[in-house]
């Protein structure tokens, strides 16, 4: 099942409640055949590619650069949104896709080379993360995006063997939080970590290894968002004959404070007669195996094309 959410313009500002409701609203597809053709394989490749990227909210630059390379002629505004304009004249409409994710930045580098983290997003302003969100880091590989490139690391976990006999039955079993996350990049000193290009504020995420399973099911962190953005990208690549003007915006900072990315697009390029946001239903949301059906993404592409062409 898929959804295209609708946000009504209210005097140039977006009503957050309406927007949220719109995000959740599902529009079932009609059985109309697509007018524009897109290759399923291309969509799958885009979805896998987007799902393997990291775009910690507010620090989406790398993914933004990739999108700009994908769409020659697109522009990046000062906030970081990627926009491109299709067609001309009226009506003037906006189709968006938020590309950011809840993630982490390096908060401190310890003298022995371990890194400590601060979470970015998921704290309630944009969307509250699952109580187990941070626990997904424990004992797993992460990527630190340093000034000299991506640096692999792992988040420390107690060795199973050394916990034996040290806790009595019935003792507390608290979840792992980011405050317990020590990132080990193999460095033996702060200087060695810094030599890898790591500094405070470097983005950090779970190592992204999207997994395809079942019948075109895609599992990855934020797979729902990434597959929805892939559907929007595939629709643009299908070169629709748009009705009037359609601004396509891949927006940033949707998960932090005031959703500044989308607000900026509206302020800079609006007003718009209609606004829609790409969204897909996802299983196991907010986990490392958030799962979307790429068949739903196929339908979303068709629906986006219909909307753009005013059918």
């Amino acid at each position: 099942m898929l959804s295209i959410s609708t946000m009504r313009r209210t005097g140039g500002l977006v009503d957050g409640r309406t927007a949220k409701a719109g995000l959740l609203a599902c529009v079932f597809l009609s059985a109309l055949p697509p007018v524009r053709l897109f290759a399923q394989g291309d969509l799958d490749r885009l979805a896998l590619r987007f799902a393997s990227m990291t775009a910690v909210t507010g620090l989406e630059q790398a993914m933004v650069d990739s999108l700009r390379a994908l769409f020659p002629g697109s522009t990046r505004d000062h906030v970081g949104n990627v926009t491109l304009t299709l067609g001309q004249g009226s009506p003037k409409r906006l189709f968006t896709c938020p590309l950011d994710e809840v993630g982490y930045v390096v908060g401190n580098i310890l003298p022995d080379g371990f890194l400590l983290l601060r979470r970015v997003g998921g704290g309630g302003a944009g969307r509250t993360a699952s109580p187990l969100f941070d626990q997904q880091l424990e004992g797993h590989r992460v990527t630190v995006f340093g000034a000299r490139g991506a640096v692999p690391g792992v988040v420390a976990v107690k060795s199973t063997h050394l916990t034996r006999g040290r806790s009595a039955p019935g003792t507390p079993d608290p979840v792992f939080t980011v405050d317990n996350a020590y990132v080990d990049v193999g460095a033996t000193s702060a200087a060695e970590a810094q030599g890898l290009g790591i500094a405070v504020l470097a983005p950090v995420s779970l190592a992204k290894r999207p997994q395809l399973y079942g019948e075109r099911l895609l599992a990855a962190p934020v797979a729902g968002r990434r597959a929805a953005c892939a559907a929007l990208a595939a629709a643009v690549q299908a070169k629709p004959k748009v009705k009037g003007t359609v601004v396509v915006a891949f927006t940033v900072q949707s998960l932090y404070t005031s959703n500044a990315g989308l607000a900026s697009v509206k302020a800079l390029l609006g007003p718009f007669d209609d606004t829609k946001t790409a969204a897909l239903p996802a299983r196991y949301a907010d986990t490392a195996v958030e799962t979307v059906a790429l068949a739903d993404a196929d339908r979303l592409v068709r629906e986006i094309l219909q909307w753009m062409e005013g059918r």
Partner: protein
Amino acid sequence: MRAVVVAAALLSVLPPYRLSAQDSTRIAEAQSVLAQLVETYGVSGAEGPVREAVKRLLPSWAKSETDTAGNLWVRVGQGSPVVVVIAHLDEIGFRVTGIRDDGTLELETRGGFISSLFEAKPALVHTDQGDIAGVFLPRDSGFTRHTPPPLRVDVGAGSRAKAMARGVSPGQTVTMPKQYVRLSGTRATGRSFDDRVGATAQLVALRRLDRAALKHQVIFIWSVREEIGLEGAAAAATALGTTPRRVHAIDTFVSADSPIELPNFAVAPIGRGAVARALDNSSITPPAYVDSLVQVARARGVALQVGTTNGGNDGSEFTPYGVVDVPIGWPLRYSHSPAEVIDLKDVVSLADMIRAVAETW
């Protein structure tokens, strides 16, 4: 900040491993063997692919045999006293115990580990026809607890019949995808370093062994089902009986070299060499033998630490036959997790210790 992000790779998909320009020939050799073994799957009782990988990596002169338990043997040299060197092939994981109506797989654990490390992560079901991808299901309740309820796997089938049509059946083993990845310096991460490092060190030692120097027979064994109770070693010990004089279990020294571990014991930092695992939960090495091992290391100039840690080792199955267990380990961070960390210098040190023991003790 902008430069930081711009410079960051678009993808977090990194080359699985690289050879640093600073890598010595020895480090490169150890890595080339280890990476292949780490990226091969072999849950306890299903070690076949790892055993075949070890056989492929043996020196051409080595004649191997597989016993009825599944252990792989290579005998080198002649005469008494016979010395056994043993590392295990298997890794922790799961086994399918049932398939629900909705197509999800019920599991039992094989070996001891923290189950939350697998929750909501990618899964692989290992079948004779190849691996089937899936996901370990996240819990639907108990969000304030670290430990999840028993884990299940979803292969996207939707029903028992469809799952079975895809080739899934009870008894198959389940793990998560794994990858050998280099970290800073000579460090590396991956899953199942326990005990692919031991298996690697035995291979490297064999490749470099001076067979003419051997004064007695040395039996190299790659054992099965260690993680579920030292079962392969038990079979080998029974077969050899009182013949061996010593056994050297080549296995993990679970290290407290981490900011979140207690420093009471198991203090053997990674990167400082192999470790005489003098006392664990299964065996105590007689002090005179520890001293001898240290002397062997000194005579050869091999880095060796001495310590005590938790866990059992294959050699302990030989001790009821009057065989002295002198385990040699290497320090490992985050044991039995998907992100174990080693230092390749320790792998080289471990291989050198095995070779020294075979040739001189």
